[in-house]
């Protein structure tokens, strides 16, 4: 290695190597679940925690570069760690620590592929995500990017006996591959005239505005396909539910964020001066995905599909923040741009904790009851308290309720929106504030979805008799969930420390002068010009104080006598569990209000129907409107081309004669 490699980079690369080693250790005795569950996954979690620590420790140190020996002869593998990759490495390490801990207790016999093979794919998936965050040249980025897609494809199709899971896996890998092609084209355009594919060459290559816009749009489409931005989102609600829960937690929590990392790296780092309309395109896509995702989440009856659509909503919010930051950056307003960028980074980290916790919760429920359909769950809080309460924390956090972390990143995003009216462009300063309303709508709808999710799964009466013997999660699963829940709470209560950690990224991009502070340690006051502050610690202590005071006063003064009785059934026959609100019922107002979003097919019982049943079929208009016609077009094209091969020798001879004559014609 030419330059002496600095400590953090060496440590990070060796930790990634450790992950790969753990993976291959699994192959030694692929059938023994004990080795995998008791030794390999916990050590994977430890490595994840170590990566998070190194990333957090190394974020303040300057950018490090390292050129490895391997790779193409004239394009060896370049690695680079800077503030942006440190933030996402912290995200990868922290979230994967909790999820791996949960996975240690989650995988049992008969889960499709052998545990050893699963452990290999799982840890290769983690290592490739780490490699994506460190790659500093097009070739190694593409190799790690697509091996991330490949390993996650194998993880998605663990139970490959079920045809739907195979379908989901195929769709996922196909769209991931097409996205990767977009990214490859964008890198090709970005290398400008320099014919080199290292990121440093791309930074120095000056592109004409036309080529720069082409590179940006290709990158947006390519990374949007991996992130699940709306027109390219169709794979996400299929792939995430098909994967085992820890894997869908990793995919939703961490893999989608690598797409956000990619978009940030391309626009803020590699392309220098953005056009004003770039941000608008990203924000429009983001806002539409946010509303589209949350509206579909509200209408789902399968809990993992519900969470997958909620991931689409959060990706929409991330891309909205990214678009906003881009608009401010283009307009030269660096303070609001850095605020929006911090909001995006903060929400990315928050979402990986929240969504990881929820997916892991559904995993525990799935293992206990074997049910994924919301119509067959309910009342699990009594039998699975250790799963219910952390999931409640996750649900409240993702609904964006104050003391927890979801609210902080949303609050920052809204503060950034508040300075949107100063953008000099004519129509933009009027359109952007409307963005606030859409973000608020999406956040409120998220609250609606989470009440539906938590209420239908954990509260009320069990809708199936078999739920009675649902057992609580194992101690390793509880540990994993507590780690993630603690992450949610701490990120919510100490925003200032977190923001000082994230603010290093805009400083690296030159949007913020180094050493900027955001109010006292307990009070968050990000915007200089505006008097807007939020102190979660004080806030939470006051609320707790009031609650405890009320409890003491009420119980002390009025004797604590409680009697249990049947709930009010307005005098008719005894209420049973089927009279509760089902998942479709809870989604009915949304389906009624957001009618145009859905392709709906209802089966209503006719009056004379002896066994009346009511079924509603929700279909995604984008799937029927965009993907099916594309497939039929290729089908028809193939049909036309195949006529060439009719089987007669003489026709083939005619082809070669005609080719010969045509070429001779050219040669004249």
């Amino acid at each position, binding site marked *: 290695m030419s330059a002496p490699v600095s400590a953090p980079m060496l440590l990070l690369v060796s930790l990634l190597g450790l992950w790969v080693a753990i993976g291959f250790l699994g192959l030694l005795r692929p059938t023994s679940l004990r080795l995998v569950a008791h030794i390999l996954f916990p050590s994977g979690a430890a490595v994840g925690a170590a990566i998070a620590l190194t990333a957090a420790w190394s974020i303040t140190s300057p950018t490090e570069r390292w050129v490895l*020996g*391997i*790779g*193409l*002869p004239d394009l060896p593998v370049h690695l680079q760690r800077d503030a942006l990759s440190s933030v996402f490495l912290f995200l990868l390490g922290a979230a994967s620590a909790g999820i791996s801990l949960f996975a240690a207790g989650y995988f049992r016999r008969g889960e499709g592929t052998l545990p050893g093979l699963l452990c290999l794919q799982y840890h290769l998936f983690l290592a490739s995500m780490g490699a994506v965050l460190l790659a500093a040249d097009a*070739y190694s980025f*593409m*190799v790690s*990017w*697509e*091996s991330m897609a*490949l390993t996650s494809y194998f993880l998605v*199709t663990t139970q*490959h*006996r079920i*045809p739907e899971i*195979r379908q989901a*896996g*195929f769709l996922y*890998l*196909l769209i991931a*591959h*097409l996205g990767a*092609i977009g990214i*490859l*084209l964008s890198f*090709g*355009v970005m*290398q400008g005239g320099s*014919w080199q*594919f290292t990121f440093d060459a791309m930074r120095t290559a000056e592109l004409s505005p036309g080529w720069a816009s082409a590179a940006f749009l290709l990158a947006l489409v390519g990374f949007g396909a991996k992130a699940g931005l709306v027109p390219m989102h169709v794979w996400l609600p299929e792939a995430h539910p098909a994967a085992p829960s820890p894997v869908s937690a990793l995919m939703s929590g961490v893999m989608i964020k690598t797409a956000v990392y990619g978009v940030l790296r391309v626009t803020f780092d590699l392309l220098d001066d953005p056009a004003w309309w770039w941000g608008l395109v990203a924000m429009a896509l983001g806002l539409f995905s946010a509303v589209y995702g949350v509206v579909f989440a509200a209408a789902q009856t399968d809990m993992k599909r519900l969470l997958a659509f909620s991931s689409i909503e959060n990706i929409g919010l991330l891309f909205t923040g990214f678009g906003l930051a881009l608009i401010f950056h283009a307009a030269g307003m660096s303070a609001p741009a850095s605020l929006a960028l911090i909001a995006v980074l903060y929400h990315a980290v928050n979402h990986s904790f929240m969504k990881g916790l929820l997916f892991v919760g559904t995993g525990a429920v799935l293992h206990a009851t074997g049910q994924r359909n919301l119509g067959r769950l309910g009342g699990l809080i009594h039998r699975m308290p250790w799963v219910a309460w952390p999931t409640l924390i996750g649900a409240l956090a993702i609904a964006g309720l104050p003391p927890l972390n979801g609210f902080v990143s949303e609050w920052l995003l809204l503060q950034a929106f508040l300075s949107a009216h100063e953008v000099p462009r004519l129509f933009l300063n009027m359109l952007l504030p409307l963005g606030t309303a859409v973000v608020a709508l999406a956040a409120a709808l998220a609250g609606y979805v989470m009440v539906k999710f938590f209420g239908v799964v954990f509260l009320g009466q069990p809708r199936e008799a078999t739920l009675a013997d649902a057992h609580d999660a194992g101690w390793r699963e509880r540990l994993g969930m507590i780690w993630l829940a603690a992450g949610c709470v701490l990120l919510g209560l100490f925003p200032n420390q977190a923001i000082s950690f994230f603010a290093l990224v805009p400083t690296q991009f030159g949007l913020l002068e180094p050493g900027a502070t955001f109010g006292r340690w307990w009070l968050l006051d990000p915007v200089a010009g505006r008097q807007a502050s939020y102190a979660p610690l004080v806030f939470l202590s006051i609320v707790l104080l009031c609650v405890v005071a009320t409890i003491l006063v009420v119980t002390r003064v009025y004797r604590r006598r409680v009697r249990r009785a049947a709930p009010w059934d307005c005098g008719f026959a005894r209420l049973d569990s089927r009279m509760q609100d089902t998942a479709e019922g809870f989604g009915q107002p949304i389906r009624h209000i957001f009618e145009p979003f859905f392709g709906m097919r209802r089966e209503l019982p006719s009056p004379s129907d002896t066994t009346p049943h009511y079924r509603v079929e929700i279909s995604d208009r984008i799937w029927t409107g965009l993907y099916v016609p594309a497939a039929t077009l*290729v*089908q028809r*094209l*193939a*049909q036309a*081309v*195949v006529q*060439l*091969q009719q089987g007669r*020798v003489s026709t*083939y*001879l005619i*082809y*070669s004669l*005609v*080719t*010969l004559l045509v*070429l*001779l014609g*050219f*040669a004249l």
Partner: protein
Amino acid sequence: MELLALLAFPVLGAAVLAVVGARRWAPEVNVGFSAATFAAACALTSRVIGDGSFTAFGEQFFIDAFNVFLVTLTAFVSLTTSLFSRPYMRIESEHGRVRPQHLRLYHSMYQLFIAAMLLALTSNNMGMLWVAMEAATLSTVLLVTLYRTPASLEAGWKYFILCSVGIAQALFGTILLYFAAERVLGGSGMTALLWTNLNEVKGQLEPEVLTLAFVFLLVGYGTKVGLAPLHNWLPDAHAEGPTPISAVLSGLLLNVAIYAVVRCKVLVEGSLQSELPSRMLMAFGLLSVVLAALFLWRQKDVKRLFAYSSIEHMGIITFAFGMGGAVANFAALLHMTVHSLTKSAIFYSVGHAAQKTGTQTIDDIRGLVTVSPTVGWGLMMGTLAILGMPPFGVFASEFLILTTAMRQEPWSTPILLLALGIAFAAVFRRVQPMVFGETTAKRLPHSPALLPVFAHLALVLLLGVSIPPYLADWYRMAAELISGQ
């Protein structure tokens, strides 16, 4: 000396196996001879690396960096194919699909085929190159019709007629080349057709005659490469023959045909200032990639599916050679290597898969991973490699080709990428249910020989992650030779 050994072993093997081909231990003899050829090839390579290219036997044979790597590749893949054909042919004869006396024909023709290819690669005389190609075609025709089924007969017939007619055009091209060369080198008969002489004097050859010659040569050898409008024989020939033959046909014979086309292009490009030859090659390449990608969409037979995938990859290689320039040639050579390694690995696993399920139609092969993980994972990894998924070498060469295409012909990149995307969707949609899902496969009497499959895939993975420096210089030397610096 090594050259003599290299050519003698297979011919000797053919003769010996013609006698003992039907014995129980005939496959072992076959492996022995292939191993000997491989050893000779390695010795030859070390000699060429040691003291550069050289001519032998009165300049009739010429070895340089370009054809020596193809010779080693041919010898290596023929060795692994003979290893694979050992259990394969035993199972085939136990299943009663092949009669013992046909085995004798099979083994001797196999060695003769290897000899013909090595002769074509090493000969300096363009006429002998043509004769060797014709011999290769003839030896494989009988092998394609080994099973005596109506389909294999039809495939054999089409293969024979189309290739012979194609190669006849190549003969006419060679005649015109000889005609042009004779005017400059004088009528000394033997030396006029030697590639080395032609290479030195290519500046003074008449452009019109050379263009005409190139057209005939391109159509002739292009038929053997399976370029788009002339490809019709390839899917039938590769699908109906026994799988070792399909592997060798797809893996090696196509490379030899491209080698011949490139030899002619080097000569013609030297004399013509016009862009015509590279434009033609690029047009052929692009047309093959697009047509093959669309053909892939409606395949029912697994070997036909991978035969069309060979057409697609040959199209990519021709397109790369058409672009010319050091990087494109380097990438094309790398692509030839990784393609033949991966495609032969895929045919090995497909062969065993077809034997396990008793059929080649895709819809009847299901759930390989559950019954025999090695065959299932081998097929999955091979398919992902051939579709250009990154950790494997095919992505490395495609990355280089696409990036050079972006620089030289930006208009062609979207078409290429779209075709690659369609091919990916078509092949993966067929292969995924074959590997995963409920199983229809049964146990085999003999355990499948899967060492070759994973040896090939490991090599391709190595070429994908990091190309060893000496191999890189070797390719670079060959690339310079081709682009005529």
